[in-house]
């Protein structure tokens, strides 16, 4: 596809309609009689006037200018771009789910309540936690909820001075952000030469102001925090709590559980680990699961089982309250529950095993062309550095990423984590076959070779995509964020 695509507004022709409503079957009264003038809108919106065919063709064209997991390899580190099962789409579309209004009486929504209850229970078993909430809409929302839980816990104990949250330097940006906006102070903890949390540095901050630590395990380098038990003991002994960022849970299902490692509060990313579609950026779901002592602070409403019946319960006096308008992204939860059933105990374990196998395989094969900052086995993802080709040929991680686009492969995550220069974070997931991985290696090796032979071509990449590199400076300096009629 080349040339510019029209905006839907630019396809508009006055008088066209894409959808008609049934005619009014009750008496039509003049609008002015029902809504006086001072409440009325003056003028019209500039919504487009297009036919149904126009709409279908327009969005079909837009879809063709996008790239999804269904099209090809998507090794975005920390995003877990695994296959989105199609049966989950059919299940999620059942009218027995879609037609439910959130304020229907409980006896009429036993099916969805049962699903929510069993999903929570299943996620707790997977992660070694006691109970949880499915309300958070995304991982960051879950983190925020978790931080509120920390606060409620310390408040209940009269420990108002516990204001400090420790965060590794390799942490994802939302971790310190979530802590900070919840009213905590953030203290960074250094990584040691192994890329893991430095116990020495950690020990400096275990005072009476400690609220806790936020970790992901494996960490953002794809390395398992071997000292996790020590860390947990140190933090708990100092009176703090442990928070687990579940972004990397795909590495350890059936192998080790955050609860068993000592974490008090965790969030999961169902759109990562549990195969729900990323949808171009959402909707996702970030359930929060907790250990026993924190259950009473969970958001309301809670789903509970009484005998054989399920119901919402609001009677939790120490709850932090509501964190969403209703109950969360239910449409995402139905897909996640389907995935839980489809995989089961053996399937989830196998998924993690294959995810880790695939990552280690890629790591071994790419060692020769790129620099790998940390020795030893990785878990489900690993970090490469393009610094060797940057120094020799001036080719950056960004250039490598853009060159991959020409090969029909979505680039890995770049420039994260910040502690590795020219970082490329690669997470293949368990969905990928050996052939896909081998082809990826071939393409990466050819890019490394091209860096030596024709670096300019890489600087100008991509060449084959619908648009070339975009001017981000102009977009930020003179933002145009909406179409306006002439």
């Amino acid at each position, binding site marked *: 596809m080349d040339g510019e695509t029209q905006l839907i507004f630019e396809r508009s022709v006055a008088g066209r309609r894409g959808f008609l409503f049934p005619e009014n079957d009750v008496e039509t009264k003049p609008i002015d009689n029902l*809504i006086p003038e001072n409440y009325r809108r003056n003028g019209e919106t500039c919504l487009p006037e297009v036919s149904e065919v126009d709409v279908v063709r327009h969005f079909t064209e837009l879809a063709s*200018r996008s790239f999804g997991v269904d099209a090809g390899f998507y090794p975005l580190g920390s995003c877990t771009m695994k296959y989105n099962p199609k049966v989950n789409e059919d299940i999620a579309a059942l009218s027995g789910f879609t037609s*439910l209004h959130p304020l229907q009486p409980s006896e009429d929504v036993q099916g969805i309540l049962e699903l929510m209850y069993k999903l929570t229970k299943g996620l707790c078993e997977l992660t070694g936690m006691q109970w949880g909430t499915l309300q958070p809409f995304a991982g960051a929302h879950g983190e925020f909820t978790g931080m509120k839980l920390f606060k409620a816990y310390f408040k209940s104990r009269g420990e108002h001075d516990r204001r400090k949250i420790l965060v590794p330097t390799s942490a994802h940006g939302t971790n310190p952000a979530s802590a900070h906006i919840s009213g905590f102070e953030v203290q960074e903890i250094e990584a040691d030469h192994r890329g893991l949390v430095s116990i020495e540095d950690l020990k400096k901050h275990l005072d009476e102001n400690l609220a806790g630590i936020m970790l992901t395990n494996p960490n953002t380098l794809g390395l398992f925090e071997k000292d996790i038990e020590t860390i947990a003991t140190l933090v708990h002994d100092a009176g703090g709590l442990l928070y687990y960022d579940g972004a990397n849970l795909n590495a350890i299902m059936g192998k080790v559980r955050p609860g068993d490692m000592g974490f008090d509060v965790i969030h999961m990313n169902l759109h990562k680990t549990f195969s729900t579609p990323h949808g171009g950026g959402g909707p996702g779901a970030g359930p929060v699961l907790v250990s026993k002592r924190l259950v009473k602070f969970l958001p309301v409403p809670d789903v509970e089982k009484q005998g054989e019946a399920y119901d919402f319960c609001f009677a939790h006096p120490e709850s932090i309250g509501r964190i969403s308008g*209703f109950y969360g992204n239910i449409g995402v939860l139905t897909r996640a529950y389907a995935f839980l059933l489809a*995989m089961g105990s053996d399937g989830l374990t196998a998924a993690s095993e294959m995810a880790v196998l695939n990552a280690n395989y890629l790591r071994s094969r790419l060692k020769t062309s790129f620099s790998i900052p940390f020795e030893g086995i990785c878990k489900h993802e690993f970090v490469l550095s393009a610094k060797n080709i940057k120094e020799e040929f001036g080719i950056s991680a960004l250039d490598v990423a853009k060159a991959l686009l020409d090969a029909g492969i979505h680039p890995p995550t770049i420039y994260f984590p910040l502690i590795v220069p020219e970082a490329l974070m690669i997470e293949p997931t368990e969905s990928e076959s050996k052939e896909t991985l081998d082809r990826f290696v071939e393409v990466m090796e050819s890019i490394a070779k091209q860096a030596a032979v024709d670096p300019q071509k890489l600087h100008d990449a991509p060449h084959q995509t619908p648009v070339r590199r975009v001017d981000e400076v102009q977009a930020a300096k003179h933002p145009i964020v909406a179409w306006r009629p002439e």
Partner: protein
Amino acid sequence: MIQHPYLPQTEDEIKSMLETIGVSSIDDLFSDIAPSVLLQKELNLPKTKTEWEVYQELSHLAEKNRSAISFLGCGSYDHIIPSVVGRIMGLPMFYTSYTPYQAEISQGVLQAIFEFQSMICSITGMDVANASLYDGATAAVEAAAMAVNSSRNSDTILVSETVHPSTKAVLRTYFGDLGINIVEVPAEKGRSNFAAIRDALKSEVAAVLVQTPNIFGYLEDLTGLADAVHDNKSKLIVSSNPMSLGIARSQAEWNADIAVGDTQPFGLPSYFGGPSVGYIATREKLMRKLPGRIVGQTTDAEGKRAFVLTLQAREQHIKRERATSNICSNQALAALGTTIYLSLIGKQGLKEAGNLCLQKAHYLHDRLVKELGAEALSAEPFFNEFTLNIGSKTDDLIKALRSGGIYGGVRVENLDERYQGLVTIAVTEKRTKQEMDRYVDIAREVL
């Protein structure tokens, strides 16, 4: 190794890969996990099931839910959804794609978001909108945070009592422990008391939040409110059901600073409350204070029009003392649904749909109030929801309607126990005269 359609690796391939890595078994790849935490037993979950079995089990769960002809509203509405919406949302390159960070191969997703932003601007009358937030309640939180962050020494948000109780509850959860006061200004007969709101304005007030149509369905007359709020150097945040805005005055026309709400009525099923789509829109001067993702228009290296995520600087560096929320993703696919819906119905359709809701709601209202003598909470104008004071007969009414296959309305006491005996009834373009007549016939026996 189990066999599974989602796991392509064969035993031979596994062996070959292990060899390349230089280990002898899968277990070796987990040797970095201390034996003391390594799971020694299997997870206590059922084993893997085949696709058909999963489908059966979930269908069974779906069948345990019931529906009825719905007059339920209060933030989630039963509107007609064109078939095209679901078909386009189901296109693989839309729903299996990630956030469009790599602009060159994500122009489709980016342009769709740009069109969404444009439509929100048009409907609200505002200059700029973002790529969507989680839902209407959290959008109100974000707006409040914007107001607090862009003013000095302010620690109070005034909220009219007639704002949705869940929105108020979420505001309290977010701000309660940060020293920001959420102060509810009592309503009067189902509508905001603007004199009281004006009296409550003082220098510590960062913003005033009102909702129109309000929780009871009534339109609020915001004449002069913006002036009073601005004189106090505060911000006016107005939350509106966007389906009303083809007919009702837009937030920009009320001179609001920030417009928020939920676009679930546009092309999305109720789905037990989620996913829906929060929207937030504001004036040009507050653009760089908007949270969340924003798509901007620019050019590529060859001068072609292109779209890209922009103003990303706002997202991660939240070091300020008064920063209050970190919502930074969007409801992408659901927002796409809204964009498709609005493209299909167009400017005429928005007015038509609004008018149908209006006419039908008034039909039911008039029959219940004038014919059956039900007590309306207010005589003020409403859009597609209104509230009746049924008092001690509420149980009987709701039960009778339910037996007749109708959800008669939301018992507002379930949202806030102060509202005993109040029932809020929503009517959309989907409801027929026949359904409403049946409602009246059943209600006649009770009231």
